[in-house]
């Protein structure tokens, strides 16, 4: 039987935005009234981009929330991270297929000549190895290296939010909010890393500091 009844609920919540989007696309496809504006493809780009950033930030919040409030949510971190990849893939697919329909000249020009899109592409590319190495067996096999690799999520989220900031035309409020949340999360990490380090040197402990710091 289901051991953890919360998990399916979590999946449903994480899938909900995309299910809503697919439903709206279905309406659009059938010429029914829909909520994707008169320019649905642009709307899909923005919608999926926004949800990618949100899931990246949520996945980065799991550890601090678990530590500070003693929530038992660490076991969901991997799933939430994978949903960030899921929405990023929708974002990228929409761009490649619906928006530019494999118009490689324009796509390559975009990605290599326009820094805003270069940053987005770097962010998405960095997400791929993280998603691939998310199976239990690979996590076990990689051990400490897995933790090291997955710290990339901070780097790629910075790229993603810079991309977000640069892609908006005038109103940078939302990307600024995203960047502020990321700053707090990064600040927390640095802070807890430092306090752990000083605690340890107080106690004159030896051993693999780095490992513990990463795990923290």
């Amino acid at each position, binding site marked *: 039987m289901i051991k953890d009844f919360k998990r399916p609920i979590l999946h449903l919540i994480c899938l909900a935005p995309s299910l809503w989007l697919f439903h709206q696309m279905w309406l659009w496809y059938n*010429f029914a009234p829909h909520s994707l*504006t008169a320019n*649905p493809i642009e709307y899909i780009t923005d919608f999926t981009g926004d949800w990618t950033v949100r899931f990246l930030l949520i996945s980065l919040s799991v550890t601090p929330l678990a530590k500070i409030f003693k929530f038992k949510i660490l076991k969901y971190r991997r799933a939430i991270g994978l949903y960030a990849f899921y929405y990023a893939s929708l974002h990228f697919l929409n761009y490649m297929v619906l928006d530019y329909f494999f118009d490689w000249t324009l796509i390559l*020009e975009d990605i290599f000549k*326009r820094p805003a*899109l270069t940053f987005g592409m770097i962010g998405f590319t960095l997400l791929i190895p993280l998603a691939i190495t998310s199976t239990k067996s690979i996590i076990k096999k990689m051990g400490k290296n897995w933790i090291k690799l997955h710290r990339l999520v901070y780097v790629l989220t910075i790229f993603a939010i810079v991309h977000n900031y640069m892609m908006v035309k*005038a*109103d940078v409020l939302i990307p600024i909010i995203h960047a502020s949340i990321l700053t707090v999360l990064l600040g927390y990490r640095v802070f807890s890393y430092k306090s752990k380090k000083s605690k340890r040197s107080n106690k004159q402990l030896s051993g693999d500091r780095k490992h513990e710091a990463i795990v923290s």
Partner: protein
Amino acid sequence: MLIKIKKPWELSENDVTSVGNYKTRRDFIKAAGIVTAAGMMAPYGALARTLTAAANPYDGRDIKEELTDKRAILGYNNYYEFGMDKSDPSDNAHSLITVPWSITVDGHCEKPGTYGVEDLIDFNALEERIYRMRCVEAWSMVIPWVGVSLSEIIKKLEPTSKAKYVYFETLEDEAQMPALLRGVIKWPYKEGLRMDEAMHPLTLMAVGIYGETLANQNGAPLRLVVPWKYGFKGVKSIVKISFWEDEPNTSWMRLAPHEYGFYANVNPEVSHPRWSQAKERRIGDFSRRPTLKFNGYGEEVASLYAGMDLRKNY
């Protein structure tokens, strides 16, 4: 899910009928020398008035493309004074009061002063012009405007020889425009044209769309339409017209000078730094189409820019 998409670029039956009707009737009436669009569409508000427009040399010339669905023209707008989302203007612009309306005219001209809309626009000489409108965000529409050549207005105001540029301002009123408080742009919205651009017969001061007075979100009661330039040059709800000797610093130039220039001519060869301008999506279409230089009006306007480096003067 994604794979199933194959039809959305076709217009729905509804759209085709309404646009089709419009065209046939328009053609029919045009044959009689006069174009009206009375009662063709449901009015968008209590204030909507039907306009009568005479046929003219620029009426739909070269435009063999489908007119954009009226619902999209009314519902998908950039008018930041009413909000940042495309649907915000249609949701919020009802708070704009367009009657009475006054326009201040000053600068290098013989007839400065304060004018009403009817003082500047001869409603008996309205023309319908079907123009492509290309937004800098790489989408476009085909819009049946109603208005008069801006040159007709300028002639009335008698600019002096010092007047090299025409400068325009949109209304700035926090009581009517909720989003002004956000200060995304330094209000009021400012735009300008070089005198020869302003006097060009294609340049239109519009008071209507689809045979009716402009909806507030489209820039009622009067707005500029410069079909060979990006849409943001089409300053809406104009309250000020000035004649200047120097080139105006427009709102978008101020916000991002390396992204938006004074000329803002549609040009697929000059990319916006953050996106390509080579292609555009016509609202209602599924795939992008190539963008035309000067938005397809090169024959009429390219000579205005002879000898200018359009990469520098973007």
